[in-house]
């Protein structure tokens, strides 16, 4: 009595000599080579960064530090300017006040009344209705 494994492997036992052509030394060499290639890649990246640091940053470190300080100052100023443009708490509270809002609304209505006739008259006046000297001019004086 045999297990299926024994039967299947037994059928191919004769091929073992041919399979011997695959050498462990060759496989080990391939594994070493690929491991080495992987290491080389990481060390290459490291050396590129190291070279950049030593040749571009270190000799001009004061200049880089100065530039960095300037950029930080610019950034800080930018932030401060943004803060000053924002409405303060008092201003925000005033806009929410109903009295202030109603006063603003009244002023707006008044302005509309004052400007309204001019705008409608200007729109109603046809262009090239006659010589300029004959055109009637209206002048509103706002006190």
């Amino acid at each position: 009595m045999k297990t299926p494994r024994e039967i299947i492997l037994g059928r191919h036992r004769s091929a073992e000599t041919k399979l011997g052509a695959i050498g462990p030394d060759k496989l080990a060499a391939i594994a070493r080579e690929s491991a080495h290639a992987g290491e080389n890649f990481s060390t290459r990246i490291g050396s590129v960064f190291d070279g950049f640091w030593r040749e571009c940053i270190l000799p001009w470190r004061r200049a880089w530090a100065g530039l960095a300080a300037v950029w930080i100052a610019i950034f800080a100023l930018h932030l401060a300017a943004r803060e000053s443009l924002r409405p303060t708490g008092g201003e925000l509270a005033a806009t929410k006040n109903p009295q202030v809002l109603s006063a603003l609304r009244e002023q707006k209505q008044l302005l509309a009344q004052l400007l309204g006739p001019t705008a409608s008259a200007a729109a109603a006046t046809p262009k090239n209705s006659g010589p300029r000297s004959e055109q009637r001019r209206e002048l509103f004086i706002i006190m």
Partner: protein
Amino acid sequence: MPHSTLMKMVVASEREQLPVAAARAGDADAWAALLARFRLPLYAYVFELVHHEQAALDIVQESFINAARHIGTLRDDDKFASWLFNIAHQKCIQHWRRVRPQEIAIDPQDEDLPDFEPGPRDLLIRKEQEAEFMRLLDQLAVAHRAVLLLYFVEDFSLEEIARITGAQLGTVKSRLHYARKAFKKLFEENES
């Protein structure tokens, strides 16, 4: 044999004791142990799928070379066996694409099936039934044969077989079920 050489000898009889880390480091003894352990099962698996001696030999050789080249990417050393068989399986698919493209897509419907109950080592076949067993195995569709071979030859779990063949777990279960049905008659005769 010197003591250092004795110490260096690697035994690869159990799956858990495979010298994968040493092989990764490029140790020739480790590769010798892995070759001794997997060369024949891998060849048997590949041959039973492609049914061509030279193609099977080439695929096994290429699989080992690929494994040596990419062993650095294998994260779990315990999965070396299924990883190696997966490489070989992919190469079989490439071979079918070249030779018999109609044999690739064989996928019966997934069903909710019970697990394959008896273990591959529990099935015993009488000597006079060996030829019949192999004939039945050859008659199975490629996808079923692949699952059954992985199950019989390496005792892979369903999850491992799914990983090797790139199939869903349910599909693997289903394939095992159908393959088992095909063998049922033979095993029943054996038991009686």
